[in-house]
Structure formats: C-alpha cells, structure tokens
C-alpha cells in the first residue's frame, strides 16, 4: 500500500510503566541510603537473594494467567530442599541424585495438585491450601524439626557460586572480563533483535514506532544491562543463580508469547468455556500449569537450600505470597488472561529492591511488610484505575 511509510504509532508507555517504577524506587533508595544499595556487593546480593522469588514468580504467573494462584509453593520449596538434604547428609549420596530426587518430588507434588484441580475440579485455592499445609507438615516430619547441614561446597555452588572469572586490576579493585564480555554479547543481541523486529514490521507493512522512541528504549535498556554487569564485574563476577534466572526467563518468555501451548493458557484465563469450544483441552492446560509450578518450586527449593548451605523446616515460609504479589505488581490481571513473564520478574525485583533498600536503611522487617503490602495494593489499584479510565 502507498501508506506503508506513514504507519507510525507511539509506544504504549504503560507497557514500560513497571520499569520506570523499578528504576525510580531504586533511585529513591540510592538517595536514602547514600548509594549503599548501588555497591557491587549489594547489586550481587539483590540477584542472589531474589533468585528464588523470581523463579517462583515465573511459575506463579502461569497460575495467575488461569485466574488462580498456588498457595503451596513455599511448602514445596521446603520439602524439596529437605529431600535433597536428607539424601546428601543421611544417605551420603551424590548431589546429582539429590537434585534429581528434589526435582522429582516437585514434579510429583505438581501432578498431585494438578490432578485434583484439573480432573476432579477442586478449586485451586483449596487444593493448594491443602498442599501448603501438607508440605509444611511433611518438611517438619522429614527433618524432625531440625536444620540439616552443612552441605557440600559443590551443591552450594548452585545458590552461592559464581561463573568462571578473568579478573584484572581496575581502579581500587578488580574487573571481571567475563562479565564485560557477556554484557557486550547481550548488547549486540539486543540491538540486532530490535533491528530485526523493525525490519519485519516494515516488510509486512505493520505500524512501527518513531525512531527516536526506539533509540530511547534501546539506550535505557543498554544502560540497565551495563549498570548491572559492570557492578557484578567489580565484585565476584556472574552468580550462577543469574544464569538459572536468565535461562528460565528466556524459556518461559518464549513459551508464553510464541507457542501454541502458552497462548492456550491466556485463552483459558480469558474465557474457559470459549477456550473449550475452540478445541483447547483446558483440563490438560490446567494440569500442566500446576505440574510446572511444582517443578519450578523444586528448582527454587534447590537454589534456596544451596544458598543457605542447609535445609531448614521453616525454609520458604511465605514465599507464595511474594510470588503472587510479584505477578500482580507486574501487571497480571487478577481474573486471569493477562500478564507477562517480564512483568512478573520486574514485580519480583520491585519487591526485592524494596526489601533490600529498607533493610539497608535500617527499617525492621515488620515495617517492611507494611510497606510491601501498601505497594501491592497501590500497584493493583493504579493498574485497575487506568484500565477503567480507558474503558
């Protein structure tokens, strides 16, 4: 068509609202704590401390997309950590067997919950309330209410280890060249993918964003990448947890946006009856969403126990709430059918930065909970209000 070149639309800024919120909160705490939260060590801690919440939030988003939640994840985290611990400590078995066993337990818990929810039609709230209670009780029984540890260094690497580094002296410390190399690769991939998407849109005659907006977006994203990787390079390099997170975000981002199975979750959440009559096996979708949640919970359980170097009966207490809150803060619809993986991850980091900043500022955990609650309510209120205005 002759109008091809004129098809330009402004970016939907709402899509990036969460990113702005994240950056603003981070800057506010940077001022309040006199930059204590921007030190290389603290940036590293932010990633290591929030790794398991991010992993859980990814799985939880799928549950939230169906219009439900999973209350059992905190308990499953504890069960899987204790199973791994018992196998390594009591049976003196190889850590790989422990990891596989923990993943299997998570899978089986998912199958259990998924079966009740999908095939017997028991409401997820009730089913996962049950798995939450049962899981916690099981953890206490398995561990006899004792902490099990310390674990082997090789296992702890999963939660506390770093990828190989090439350190050179730099300023008043060192600089890891591996981190810098990864940052360069990430930047190149980002720029290329942006250009490819622009070219595709042009080719098919779709609307494109104005060039300056694309440039601004790219600049902002590059800045965030370089900020993080530079800070990490000044510390111990890249945490192994970061690798796990990036891989999971990439896989689930792809599944939710580009696969038939992923879009079926959205269709189910939007209108289950219509999804059924569109040839979607909604029971199967439900089942696998909860099995998936079980497996991701076990990964989070492994990461947590590895970071602590031990399995404790209280591990993962309240994690389900952090994961659920992350999804909602990240813009997922409470009724289901809308939300993104990136949103949930950003939501998890908003929670993490709040926790971290308030701790550094010296606020007690009691006050932190009040603030987190208020942020959750505020975020969802703002989201719903803006949608209502549009309608």
């Amino acid at each position, binding site marked *: 068509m002759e109008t091809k070149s004129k098809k330009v639309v402004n970016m939907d800024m709402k899509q990036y609202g969460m990113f702005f919120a994240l950056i603003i909160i981070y800057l506010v705490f940077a001022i309040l704590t006199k930059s204590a939260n921007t030190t290389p060590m603290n940036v590293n801690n932010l990633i290591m401390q929030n790794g398991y919440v991010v992993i859980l939030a990814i799985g939880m988003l799928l549950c939230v997309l169906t219009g439900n939640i999973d209350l059992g994840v905190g308990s499953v985290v504890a069960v899987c950590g204790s199973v791994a611990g018992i196998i390594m400590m009591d049976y003196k078995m190889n850590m790989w067997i422990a990891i596989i066993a923990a993943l299997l337990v998570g899978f089986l818990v998912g199958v259990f919950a998924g079966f009740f929810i999908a095939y017997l039609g028991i409401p997820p709230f009730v089913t996962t309330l049950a798995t939450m209670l049962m899981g916690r009780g099981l953890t206490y029984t398995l561990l006899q209410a004792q902490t099990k540890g310390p674990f082997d260094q090789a296992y702890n690497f999963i939660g506390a280890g770093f990828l190989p580094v090439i350190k050179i002296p730099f300023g008043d410390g060192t600089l890891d060249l591996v981190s810098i190399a990864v940052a360069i690769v990430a930047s190149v991939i980002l720029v290329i993918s942006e250009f490819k998407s622009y070219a595709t849109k042009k080719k098919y005659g779709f609307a494109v964003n104005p060039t300056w907006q694309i440039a601004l977006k790219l600049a902002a994203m590059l800045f965030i990448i370089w900020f993080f990787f530079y800070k990490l390079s000044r510390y111990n390099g890249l945490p192994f947890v970061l690798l796990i997170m990036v891989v999971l975000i990439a896989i689930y981002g792809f599944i939710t946006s580009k696969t*038939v199975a992923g879009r079926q979750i959205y269709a189910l959440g*939007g209108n289950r009856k219509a999804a059924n009559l569109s*040839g*979607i096996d909604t029971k199967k979708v439900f089942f696998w969403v909860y099995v998936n949640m079980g497996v991701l919970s076990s990964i989070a359980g492994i990461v947590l126990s590895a970071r602590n170097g031990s399995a404790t009966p209280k591990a993962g207490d309240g994690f389900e709430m952090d994961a659920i809150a992350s999804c909602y803060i990240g813009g997922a619809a409470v009724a289901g059918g809308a939300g993104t993986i990136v949103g949930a991850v950003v939501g998890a980091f908003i929670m993490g930065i709040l926790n971290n900043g308030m701790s550094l500022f010296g606020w007690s955990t009691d006050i932190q909970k009040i603030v987190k609650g208020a942020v959750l309510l505020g975020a969802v209120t703002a989201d719903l209000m803006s949608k209502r205005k549009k309608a």
Partner: protein
Amino acid sequence: MSEYILEMNHITKEFSGVKALDDVNIQVRKGEIHALCGENGAGKSTLMNVLSGVYPHGTYEGDIVYKGEHCVFHNLRDSEAKGIVIIHQELALSPLLSVAENVFLGNERTSMKGVIDWTETRRRAQEMLARVGLEHENVNVPVNTLGVGKQQLIEIAKAMAKKVELLILDEPTAALNDEESRKLLDIMLELKRQGITCIIISHKLNEIEYVSDSVTIIRDGKTIETLVKGVDDYSEDRVIKAMVGREMTNRYPVREGVEIGNVIFEVKNWNVFHPDDENRQMLKNINLQVRSGEVVGLAGLMGAGRTELAMSLFGRSYGQKISGQVFINGQEVHLKTVKDAVKNKLAYISEDRKTYGLNLIGDVKENMTIAARPFFFSRHGVINANDEIVAAEEYRKRIKVKTNSINQVVGSLSGGNQQKVVVSKWMMTQPDVLIMDEPTRGIDVGAKYEIYCVINELAQAGKAVIVISSEMPEIIGTCDRIYVINDGEIAGELTKEEVSQEKIMQCIMAHNRKGDGDGNEE
C-alpha cells in the same frame, strides 16, 4: 400539562470528544408503548442511560422533562424514585435467591429498619407476579430454576414493585423464543391497559410493529424521525429504511452461481442423553444430510434440541451416552473432542458469543486465530506470529470487522463486530462443514446482512452450512432446505419452495400431537 409524560430535548452526550448523542429529541405520550430503533451503536442505550441517571445530570447537555417537571437525576435511585425503571438486556437477578427476594431486591419489605418481613415479602411478591401473568409461580424457589422467559417477567414484576410509571425495556426478547416473546409482548400490552408507559428497545421489527404505538428511530446519535401507528407508514421496511438510511430491498442477499454437489456431511441414528441425567434422552434417532454448496436450516422452538444436536456433534461438547455415526466427505469420523472435530473440518459457531465464543479481554487477532492455530499458524508448537497477523488482517477486511486494528480488545467492539470475529475464527479453520447457531442474534440489520453474505460466500466455495435460528424469516430467507426439529426428533423436512412460517409451525404441532398420542398408548 402536555400530553407527553416524557420529553427529552436536545440531548447531546460526548465521550472524550466523540458525540454518542447529537441533539436527540424524543417525546413519549402517557400510556403508550414507544419503541426506540436503531442499529447497534446508534445511541439507544446511551439515551436510556441519560434518562435513568446512569450518566448523571451535568455530564450531558439538554433537558429532560418528565410529568411536566425538569429532571435532575444524579443516579439510578433518583430516577427510580420518580417511577422510571430500566430493565437491561442482561438480567439483574441474583440466581440463587428466591423469586420473592428477587422481586424486592434493593427494595426490601421490612418490619423494623433492616429486618426483612418475609410474610409481607412473599404476599406482595405473589401480587406482583399475578400482574405479569405468573400467578401460579412458587415464590420460594431460586430464580435460576426458572427459564429465561419467566426470569424476564420477574424483572418486570420487580419493576412493578417499585411503583413504576415509565418502564424501559432494553431488548427484552433477545434471549427468548417466539412463544415466550409473544407472551412478554402481551404482558406489555396488559401493562399498557394498567396505565404504565413503556419504552422498548428492540431489533425485532415484527415485535415493534405488533406492540408499539409509535417508534423513534436513531441513527449515528441523531434522531431521524418518529413514526406513529395509524398515521404513518408503519411497516418493517419503512423502519429499516430509516435505520440504515437506505432502502433495504432485500434483507437476504441472493445466492448466485452455487452448484449443489454431493452429500459431504451426514449424520445417522444420532442419539444423545442429558449430561446430568442418563435416563433422559435429548435427541432421538437424528438423521440428516447436507450437500456441498447447500445451506440447511434447523428450525424449531427453543429447547427443541437444536443447539444440543450441534454441540453433541461438535466433539461431544454436550451430553452423554452418545451413539450414531457421522460422515464427513464420505468418511466415517469419530469426533471425541473439539480438536478432532476441527481436524476433520467441522466448525461450530456458538449461539452465545460472549460466554462460548470469545475471550473478551483478548484482542481481535488472538480471538481470530486461536482455533486454527495448531493447524495453520504453528510449527512444532511454535507460533508463526507474522502469518497470524497477515491472516487476521485479511479476514478483518474481507468480512468488514469495524475495528481500529487487529490489536483492539474484543470486549470493546459492538455485538455485530464481535460476531464477525467469531465467524472469522471458524472460517480460519477452513471447515468443510460449518454449523452457525443463531448467527445474527442481537446484532443490527447491517451486520446481519454482512453475515448472510458470508454464508453465501461459504456456499459458493462448496462448503456445507447449517444454520440454526429462532427467527423463522431468517431461516426461510437463507436456507435451501430446512429440517424442523421438535422435542429431540426431526419432525419434518421442507424445501425452499414449500417452506413458510405456517408450514414450520404446522410441522411442530403435528409432531406434538403425535408425541402425545404415543404417550397415551404407553
């Protein structure tokens, strides 16, 4: 006092700069039934919302004069206090509460402040029900145990309990069959005798012609004209002309160049039992055939089993203990799931697009491609997003879905455009056999015409189309051949040449008599 109970003068209402109503004028005489007509999106509902205070005074321009007084309504309660009650298309009944409680919902009979007087509630509810012809109804049963028709009447009883003087009915018969609709319209005439003024919004022009005394036509937010029965030309064609702004010489486009070929869809000895009651047979020995290029209608009263038949064929989405055979293109197929059905080139467009057809928070593209996606728009489970966009754009243009872009959320489209999205969704699965259940329910005349064009297009492409409709003129106007279904059985078959509304009704009546006879012999 003027002869008008209600005058709305120069009403203009804007939504963020867009004029939904532009200098609208309407005058309603006391004690008459006044119809309001217009295509979807013409502004009828907006006008009624202005009247009832849903859009409070000050958010619109213009003047409302009711019983000689200038009205300033800030909310629904204000207008209800004056005796203006609006009954919306979606019923506002609480399904699990009793009939009596629903009649006085929000208007409770109390002995002390806040304490419900149940005796009084039931007694008065009985009185109200009697006024709408439901004197034999038990007021203690939950409202959801009654049919939609009766629920609609309970809504009217509820309005009566509020001492209504001006009753507004927004598409009251949209979900009712002919018989129920007739009953409701007769109740309206009865209310008229009791001195209640009514405003009715409806797409069913035959009903308007039957029940109303005058009709005001709105198009694109403007009043076009008001016609008075007995004074002006009051025919359906006259009203349609005013609604669409052009002469609709033929409401059903002529199908040309269609070659009716071999039988491509055949059902043999199809039996289905009720999903919750394995002893209740819903469909008995259904046999039917559809040829390529042929449009076949399933006529019958509501509850006859037409939707049940379609859904049981469509991947066993309805019923249990299903037996019988289905042949598509000469091959016997076993359609155990919806996916099997789609794979075997059968598609079904549900009668209830909002509940069974659409993901209202999803966008146009997502809704259009969801069913066809596993077959056409993906490889190894990974979606080809660009193919989807191209296909969605093609269908948007081809069947004229009026939307800003394929990324618009479906819930924000009008009923007619939503229906076109559902139709696109199933056309994208490239079916050989397409069952359309009430394809034009609740959509305006223009969109209806476009849906009929799609039916013709499908027939021209050699597809088999089955149309289920409760509107007999529609069935007669669109179909080559008609099966009349009654009480879960095929009561008769009529060709285009012999069919008429009377023939269909005769067929049903004859079948009913036969059924009664069988009952006596047992």
